[in-house]
């Protein structure tokens, strides 16, 4: 009997030892990855806050991300935005295929792959806000679309190329104050479509360049002229075509061995917005096209500190195409990968006819991330 007990104890000990070597699964309850990003803003502009809500200190946005594999075929990503100005809104929510060979498809709402900077989350920007051309052509928070996205990578010429196509509900959000007789996407031809072709080259182990072209086309609401009348009192706008062509170039340098301490990035984008004309005498929309561009560069000073600058030049659609220029400088400090402080000075020089003086802006941004925040695209 004692021998039986001894053997049992020995076997149990071995089993325990074996089990002790097997760590428990890291996520046995299959919870999604939950991350939060906080984007806090201080506006110390000398002649009053330049924020939409005129606050000096504000929580620009809290972003909650929930990400997980849905099943062997899809991954789900949901990004919710919380802000004092907009309450809760769905920033992005999409299903991504994980089992299709060579192709990736998404269904849902996503940052539109038009240009380079538009696919960067606003809190991740090195410049606190999107370039002026993006703000004026796409909106202050960039351009999102709800629909279908397909991407394919190929390399027939020996370098990385990626074609990204979308078909989405419409360009941007419907303006609250404009009403057309029929929705702009009444026909399928009224959906918005985009295409972007990325081209990437390694110049060396430390340097690389990306040159890409984008096109976005769809319909938007354009107002009737002041005093002009539509077919009914409720109708004050007409559906008109709009196409945006974009080109972007990015150069990066980061020596591999010194990469914790030295890096440089230079980026430029140019956009051309072409607007459908109307023969209707009451048409109050733009009867011209607009161009905008920016150039940006950032140099790493130390392991945690960067300096950057940006120059913007935009024919402002909100001011009939008169030119808005701006010059800005930035100092960034990263206490860690998960927190960032950015101090920015910007001088905005609006159009001459706007009769508005140039504006000096002084901003301080603090961002932080908690949870397993996923890495962002290169």
């Amino acid at each position, binding site marked *: 009997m004692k021998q039986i007990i001894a053997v049992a104890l020995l076997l149990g000990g071995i089993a325990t030892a074996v089990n002790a*070597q097997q*760590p428990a699964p*890291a996520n046995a309850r299959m919870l999604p990855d939950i991350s939060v990003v906080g984007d806090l803003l201080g506006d110390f502009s000398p002649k009053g806050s330049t924020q939409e809500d005129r606050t000096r200190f504000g929580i620009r946005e809290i972003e909650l991300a929930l990400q997980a594999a849905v099943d*062997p075929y899809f991954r789900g990503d949901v990004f919710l935005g919380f802000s004092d100005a907009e309450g809760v809104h769905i920033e992005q929510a999409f299903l991504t295929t*994980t*089992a*299709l*060979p*060579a*192709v*990736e498809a998404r269904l849902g709402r996503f940052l539109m792959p038009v240009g380079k900077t538009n696919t960067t989350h606003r809190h991740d920007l090195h410049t606190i806000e999107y370039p002026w051309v993006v703000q004026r052509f796409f909106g202050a928070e960039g351009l999102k679309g709800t629909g279908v996205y397909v991407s394919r*990578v190929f*390399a027939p010429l020996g*370098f*990385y190329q*990626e074609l990204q196509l979308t078909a989405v509900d419409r360009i941007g959000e419907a303006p609250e104050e404009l009403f057309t007789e029929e929705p702009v996407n009444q026909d399928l031809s009224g959906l918005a479509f985009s295409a972007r072709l*990325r081209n*990437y080259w*390694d110049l060396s*182990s430390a340097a*690389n360049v*990306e040159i890409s072209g984008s096109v976005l086309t769809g319909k938007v609401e354009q107002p009737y002229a002041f005093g002009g009348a539509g077919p009914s009192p409720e109708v004050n706008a007409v559906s008109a075509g709009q196409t945006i062509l974009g080109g972007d170039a990015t150069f990066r340098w*980061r020596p*591999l*061995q*010194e*990469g*914790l*301490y030295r890096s440089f990035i230079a980026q430029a984008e140019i956009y051309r917005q072409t607007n459908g004309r109307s023969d209707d005498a009451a048409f109050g929309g733009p009867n011209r096209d607009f161009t905008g561009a920016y150039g940006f560069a950032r140099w790493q000073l130390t*392991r*945690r500190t960067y300096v950057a600058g940006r120059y913007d030049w935009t024919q402002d659609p909100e001011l009939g195409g008169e030119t808005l220029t701006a010059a800005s400088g930035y100092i960034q400090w990263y206490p*860690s*990968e*998960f927190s960032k402080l950015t101090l920015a000075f910007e001088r905005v020089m609006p159009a001459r006819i706007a009769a508005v003086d140039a504006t000096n802006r002084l901003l301080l941004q603090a961002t932080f991330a*908690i949870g*397993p925040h*996923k*890495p*962002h*695209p*290169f």
Partner: protein
Amino acid sequence: MRMLIAATAAVVFSTPVGAQLRIVTSTTDLADIASAVGGSHVRVNHVSEGYQDPHFAEAKPSFVLQLRNADVFAFVGLDLEAGWMPILLQGARNSRVAAGGRGHIDVSQAIEVLDRARGNVDRSQGDVHALGNPHYWLDPDNGRRIAQLFRRRFSELDPKNAAAYTANATAFEAKLKAAEEGWAPALAQIKGKPVVAYHTSWKYLAEYTGMNIVGFMEPKPGVPPSPSHIASLIAEIKRTGAKAIIMEPYYSRKDADFVAARTGARVLVLAPSVGALRGQKLDSYVDVLQYDIGQIAAAVK
């Protein structure tokens, strides 16, 4: 007719004669061991370089092209590659190497992992790897485990060359064993000697060699040294008599040199990986261990 269809299918779907397993690894060490075990039957590329901090490799699109066509992606795991691996695997759209694929090899599954976090873990503790210390390849016993893992997995994926993989793994073991016999006197020199390390990446080498890490340049993993921490470290070095500050080539020497000047300790820039020191010919896993052990022994005697 049936024979024709069967023959056609055999031609279309069989592995072409002479085809190699296309392997991508996250680090140069895994690449070297994979090459040693795979021999002429594999073609190996790696993402990060030996002289680069593997935590912060960039997810460049050119790596996507490598992974797109790979049969195997072998990585260190334990979140070492968390900053870039998901982007690359997502972009590659290659089910063979995606999570769950036959060619997706988390090498940490074969390892006796040190420093598994106990109790509450959060980022107030620095850049802590909650699943354990991922810098395990610097223990030759783990090198053996990696080689056996590759032998097993390559043989599953390419059974017709299983005998070659077994022979190559045996040869790797023999080379490692011979090298261990060569550096045994150096191990005797190192055993029990106090040293300071820059980052927690030298724990496995410390376990193997018996060197006693009495302090780290980083007050917490991933946190650069502060003046107060440097002051306490200087005191600790003087108290323990540590003669060496061992560090990787991708960290700045400035703080280590400051401490060394005030304590008489020697700053040793060692190779954390294959190819790490561009002035030295450290082209293999065994070369790296031989160099590091030799340098430590010379510094602490």
